[in-house]
């Protein structure tokens, strides 16, 4: 990976700002009833998403979890189409069928969020198998939460990727909590990279608040995958600022803990410092960037608000091809 240049740096920063603003805006809209079924706010986890997605190619594959707005935006989808999906509008990325948990654009390599913890890694592993089978020069990334690290299927898939040397990255978006359960309480051994390395693949615990670190590890993993050296496991330590689902608080962690992460470990703040200290932007320019992001998100909300609902009559369309019954 080449040295950081100005345009890349600003792009990374802006993308993280888009995610933060998107999430905080959507959260408030959700509290106002605009997001049917609720949503999982990823604020605090921007560097994992942006670091990863900026290090892979546009048509590489991702499959992810119930908490995937950040991955989806970082993959390059517009705030409009994601916001509209949260509103379950026809203009949403999944045409209102999926909602917040089921953002996807399979033709472009977004193999979907998922309502089922642990399912995403398997789908990404399958995509990596498809890539290997066809011989394409691509990779797949399977996102999973710390909670998803205790689903057996995830380890089945990691093993399969390991023995078949599939071009896969398993990316743990480790925000340290599964709903209200601290990772340390339910994760035997505690060290996820160690766990993974027992399945025979390179495995790293990294700082998920440092967008450049994430970017670097993912980039190297991608190179290995493209070289036919198989999968890599990356456990990125991060933190979620809001409740599991919108509006949830709970006593499972202290306000001090949240404040500590927010004030000392914020991925956007940290990278803003890098950007400024590297001379890529002044504080004023950063504020300008933030303002342009604000505008983008406002437009996304307006777009989502004004978009039409899906056709109710379509509810039985697209279930299957209907062609199995045709005599060939």
């Amino acid at each position, binding site marked *: 990976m080449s040295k950081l240049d100005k345009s890349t740096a600003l792009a990374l920063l802006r993308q993280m700002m888009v995610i933060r603003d998107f999430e905080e805006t959507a959260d408030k809209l959700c509290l106002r009833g605009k997001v049917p079924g609720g949503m999982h706010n990823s604020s605090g986890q921007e560097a994992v998403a942006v670091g990863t997605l900026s290090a892979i190619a546009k048509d590489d594959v991702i499959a992810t979890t119930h908490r995937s707005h950040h991955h989806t935006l970082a993959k390059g989808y517009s705030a409009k189409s994601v916001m509209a999906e949260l509103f379950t509008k026809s203009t949403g990325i*999944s045409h*209102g069928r999926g909602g917040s948990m*089921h953002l996807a654009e399979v033709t472009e390599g977004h193999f979907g969020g998922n*309502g089922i913890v642990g399912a995403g890694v398997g789908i990404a592993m399958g995509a990596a198998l498809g890539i290997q089978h066809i011989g394409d020069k691509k990779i797949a990334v399977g996102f999973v939460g710390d909670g998803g690290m205790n689903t057996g299927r995830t380890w089945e898939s990691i093993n399969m990727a390991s023995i078949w040397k599939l071009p896969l990255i398993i990316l743990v978006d480790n925000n340290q909590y599964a*709903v209200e359960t601290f990772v340390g309480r*339910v994760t035997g051994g505690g060290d996820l990279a160690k766990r993974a390395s027992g399945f025979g693949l390179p495995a790293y615990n990294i700082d998920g608040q440092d967008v450049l670190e994430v970017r670097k590890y993912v980039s190297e993993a991608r190179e290995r995958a493209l070289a036919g050296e198989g999968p890599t496991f990356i456990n990125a330590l991060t933190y979620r600022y809001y409740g599991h689902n919108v509006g949830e608080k709970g006593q499972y962690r202290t306000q001090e803990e949240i404040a500590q992460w927010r004030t000392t470990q914020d991925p956007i703040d940290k990278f803003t410092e890098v950007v400024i200290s590297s001379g890529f932007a002044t504080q004023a320019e950063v504020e300008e960037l933030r303002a342009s992001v604000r505008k983008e998100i406002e437009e996304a909300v307006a777009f989502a608000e004004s978009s039409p609902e899906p056709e109710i009559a379509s509810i*039985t369309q697209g*279930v299957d091809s209907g062609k199995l019954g045709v005599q060939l």
Partner: protein
Amino acid sequence: MTTEVKAVTPTYSEAFQSGVREEMNRNKKIFIIGTDLVERGGHFAQVKGIAQEFGLKQVRDAPISEAAMIAAGMGAAMYGCHPIVDLNFIDFSLGAMDEIINQAAKIRFMFDRPVPLVIRATSGVALGGAHHCNSLESFFAHTAGLSLAVPSTPMDVKGLIKTALRNEDPVIFLMHKKLSGIRGEIGDENYFVPFGKAKTIKAGKDAAIITYGYSAVTATKAAQALEAEGISVEVIDLRTLYPIDQDAIDAAVIKFGRVVVLDEAPLFGSITAEIAATASERNFKSLKGPIVRVGAVRAPLSANPAMSEAAIPSVDQISKAVKQVMSY
């Protein structure tokens, strides 16, 4: 002078708490396993406060490992405990189907050893989209060795969970999402609802709707609407799908000869088929015309609320079905 305070009746979720508490007080071998039960009390507050009252040995927060949760409950049940495994959403049982269908259900038959295990989950169509709204009743009801409770009122929740916890069979206990907050009377410590006994929730003279779960609410609405049109419909709530109250079904067929069977699972292959087919076979001559089934469309559910709602039977659809059986 004493002021009479009108007590608020408990919710459907509190009814569960109440039944479980009472039984836990008399039987220390009852304990509960699931995610986020201790502090949060479960996603629907169904076990709120129980950990605080009974301690952390009696309520265990589990990793997100549905197969292991069921295995844990099953093995402990075989050993002599009476665990409740709280799966949160019944959809997540799909990750533990071998444990449920192939193991827990078959052990008594194969090894002459009871498996006193309750598997609790919320079920039914509500917000949440395709992965959180599977109606799997027909899977469990079809499986020899399993019993299946589908209460629609606080009274039945409490009465049925208490019966389940005094018996030694594996029970799937489904609580409908949309009913979580409804309130109603609950029985006292000695009130038990037996499995396999339906309840007439509205008497009628002309035709019967046989149903269960949230559909009992919709059916009652339809019956009220039809009352205005001079059609008097009886609504029968099965309360459990296995054992099923064949006597009550037979009696309805014999009495009315006009029967609608209703639930919100996709119609093709739903448990309504079993009810209608067996009822027709047993009392064909009493039928004035075919039993009419009402169910959901054959499609996954959408996140969009209107689409999701349109997929399942409406009051209108039910009324239409009743009118159809009235037309014979």
